[in-house]
């Protein structure tokens, strides 16, 4: 194989990508996925009423309370964002329907130390985002009440949980796990998947448009042509992944160990691209190749994710700086597997080149 020929083919494919502006779609796609994921997290609360975004933290919600006196009332006293109104059940429910209270609680006349359970009825408004907010707040109150009831009935328990004292850090739900544990690995591996789909298009197009012979009449050999295309697809992977890490950093989401992460992405990306190339060489027809390849990728990803210390997990660990040197070992393993696959694709390419494309239309 001649490196200069491979470089030439790669250059031609890259300029084709930029002149057709298809790469713009690929980048738009990734931006869209990123924005959409953050919408899911942040936008959920804002959908109902944008003003409520800041209102959620300071607003005070009225809760109607009906039924018998119970220690639950004291639990509510501890909250500054929930105000309890003693009401009768019927007017309370009518008020709930008119949204004059945010929830209604009915407590029966069961003593805390009774034989049976304390059965409380909680009324919320259906189809309402505010109910979701209230739900969370009341859940905390009820859990406090549950703890209290457990203490009252402690003499009936046979075993007790180990006690832990948690610091009062507020209940601010952070998106830490979502960003580092899900969004980041998806974002850095998306370019690899896109490139793998791209190599299938590039190879099958030569067959289906019957442009292969023209290309092979130049000094470039078949294998060089294939690897030139692979190189072009591979080159754009770390660039896009690196851009994502930079963008996340600009957004205040610091990603540790950027260089090792990019190495992992590059190795895994090349593996996927080679797999795509092999599928394309086998089928020489886009629909079949894309279909088989995407199904195979789903299987592969499920399998990889089920294994501890998989590359996706390593990307996460590297980003939050808990990886340890073991990731170099995994990287070496993936690299060896990729090199073996590259050898296999080269051998397959030479075999396919000798046999003229008979199956292509």
């Amino acid at each position: 194989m001649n490196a200069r020929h491979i470089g030439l083919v790669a250059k031609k494919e890259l300029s084709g990508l930029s002149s057709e502006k298809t790469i713009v779609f690929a980048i738009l796609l990734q931006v869209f996925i990123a924005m959409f994921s953050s919408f899911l997290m942040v936008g959920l609360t804002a959908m109902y009423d944008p003003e409520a975004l800041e209102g959620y933290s300071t607003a005070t919600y009225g809760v109607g309370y009906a039924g018998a006196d119970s220690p639950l009332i004291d639990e509510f006293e501890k909250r500054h964002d929930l105000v309890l109104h003693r009401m009768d059940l019927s007017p309370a429910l009518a008020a709930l329907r008119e949204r004059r209270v945010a929830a209604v609680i009915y407590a029966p006349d069961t003593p805390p130390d009774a034989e049976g359970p304390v059965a409380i009825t909680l009324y919320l408004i259906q189809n309402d985002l505010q109910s979701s907010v209230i739900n969370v707040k009341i859940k905390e109150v009820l859990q406090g009440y549950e703890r209290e009831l457990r203490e009252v009935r402690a003499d009936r328990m046979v075993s007790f949980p180990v006690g832990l004292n948690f610091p009062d850090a507020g209940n601010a739900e952070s998106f830490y796990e979502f960003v580092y544990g899900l969004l980041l690995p998806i974002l850095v591996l998306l370019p690899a998947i896109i490139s793998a789909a791209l190599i299938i298009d590039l190879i099958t197009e030569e067959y289906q448009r019957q442009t292969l012979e023209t290309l092979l009449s130049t000094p470039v050999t078949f294998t060089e042509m294939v690897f030139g295309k692979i190189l072009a697809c591979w080159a754009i992977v770390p660039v896009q992944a690196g851009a994502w890490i930079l963008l996340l950093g600009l957004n205040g989401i610091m990603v540790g160990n950027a260089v090792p992460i990019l190495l992992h992405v590059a190795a895994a990306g090349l593996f996927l691209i080679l797999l795509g190339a092999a599928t394309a060489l086998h089928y020489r027809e886009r629909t079949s190749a894309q279909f088989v390849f995407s199904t195979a990728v789903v299987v592969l990803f499920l399998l990889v994710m089920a294994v501890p210390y998989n590359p996706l997990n390593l990307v996460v660990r590297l980003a939050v700086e808990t990886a340890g040197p073991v990731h170099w070992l995994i990287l070496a393993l993936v690299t060896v597997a990729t090199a073996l696959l590259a050898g296999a694709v080269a051998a397959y390419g030479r075999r396919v080149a000798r046999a003229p494309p008979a199956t292509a239309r």
Partner: protein
Amino acid sequence: MSLASSIRTIAVWEMNRSMTTMGRSVLPLAAGLLALLVLVTAFAAQSGVHMQDGIYRIGIDDPEVARIVTPDSRFTVELADGHTLWNDRFAYDILVLSGEVYAADTDKGRAALTALRRDYDAYVSRVAAAQPDLFAGYPLWIDLEYVRSEIDFLATQSGQQVGAPADTRRPPAPSGPVEAVTPPPATVPVSENDLRQHLAETGSQSPLSRYTGIISSSSATDGLRTPAELSPPLPYDALILVFVFIFPLYFTSQFFMMSVMNERIGRAGEALLSTPVRPAAIVVGKAVPYLAIMLLVSAAITVFIGAPLAILLPLFPVILFFLANALIIGMAARSFKELSFVSIFFSTLATSYLFFPTVFANTHVISIISPLTLVVLQIQGEGFTAVEYIYSTALFFLTSAVLIYAGTVNFREERLFSEKPLTSRLVDFVAGVIGRDHPHLSLFLLSAFTIPFVFMVQMMTLVLFFNIPMPLSLVILTVSAAFIEEVAKSVGLYAIARERPGFLTVKNLLLGAVAIGAGFLVGEKLLLFATLSQITESIFGSVLFLSLQVLWMPLLLHIGGVLITGTFLLVGGRRAYVPGLVVASVVHSLYNLYFLLGGLS
């Protein structure tokens, strides 16, 4: 040949051809991969998903406590004596020393604390569930009842407050009639055994069973739950449903897309076009097998997951929409990579459009704009009404019809085999729709029929700009909404100017602008009042669909916008189109902002 019989001929031919090119080599492997997928899924369910393994470091001095976090693979546990741990305290996100929990004062430390707290709650629940006296472990049971509120969020418009009442110190009194309600019973109407079983079911859930068990949730306990089980009704599970149904649809539409594209490779479809078969028959005939396959696949999935077959009703317009877009993309793409990127991009947009409202399926009326919400509701056993069906599927039926019509009209030699770039081909398609005899009527209809697309795109911008802070997002939304509308209105004019440069005279421009403006307004009104009135009343909606005041003002605005772009086209030629669009959008945005600010103050 009659239309029906030629459609049948084409359909049979298409079926045979795709089976021979695909069938023998792909199907066995696909079946093998599918079997492998089942195996791997089982393996993943067994071993769990190891994506977030070891992201937190926790130091513990008590093996008893360490046992609480061992099942959670997110934690790397270091068990040592308190003194050693304290000396290395900065290496850990969390320290647990003699029952006291210390968390690092970072985002990561707080996230780890939340994770630990959840684990601890689960552990306490496990201990409680093991008690011989169930009601000592679980003394509190909640019966959650939902009340339908008569005031929906249209209320904000009429000055009513939807959020928390302003004065919360005084007990509120209902202003309307009070229905007498019998208080619920003080005892739990479910046997203790059923409750135990319920706890065992919810306690032993593996991470994946949450997804496999969405359809068959047990109702033995009648909605009774412990406080820990109270969770806000946000169905992220809907995401799984989306993939179960949309993924196969996406693939089948890919086959159709490729079949259309194949007709164009090396002018392969020339023979077909030279037969006396009408283009409509070719398009429909080619699409029918794929439509049938998609319906069959959806039905099979429905039966497989044990859902009611009625969910095929809302899926049908989605299938049509996918096919219609596949037709246009297959006709327009220049190369395979363009086909791939455009189709992936389109399907991502479509999937998120389908998915995002579904998130609110149990929380908000807005969710009905996605047909998938109807699927979720049907699976939950709530069903949907005919009005809801029309409301959520109208956009899909309309856009599919328009796209299929545009595809059929343009299914001609000179369009299919030209080598122009994507955008100019699409403009050609638009020009193909404009009739030569009645250009103004065509423009009127064209702009009326762009409305569903404009709404769809604007809904997507609503999604996109949501997470930008409030005043900025409103401004960006206003400007982008104006831009989208101006593009939609002027595209017909642009197409005509390109195809027939002589057409664009002052008189024709004026007439055309009036036709387009009127068409746009009529389409907007029809669709809005028919379907989208709910969304238009929220604050974001009032930005997007502002032009709903008195009739003559939006009409003038629409005509004015087209006139601006048209004048630029007339004076500066096609190169002035983009500047013209920008000027028109600025004027449009200013109009919108003026009314928005007026409306807000």
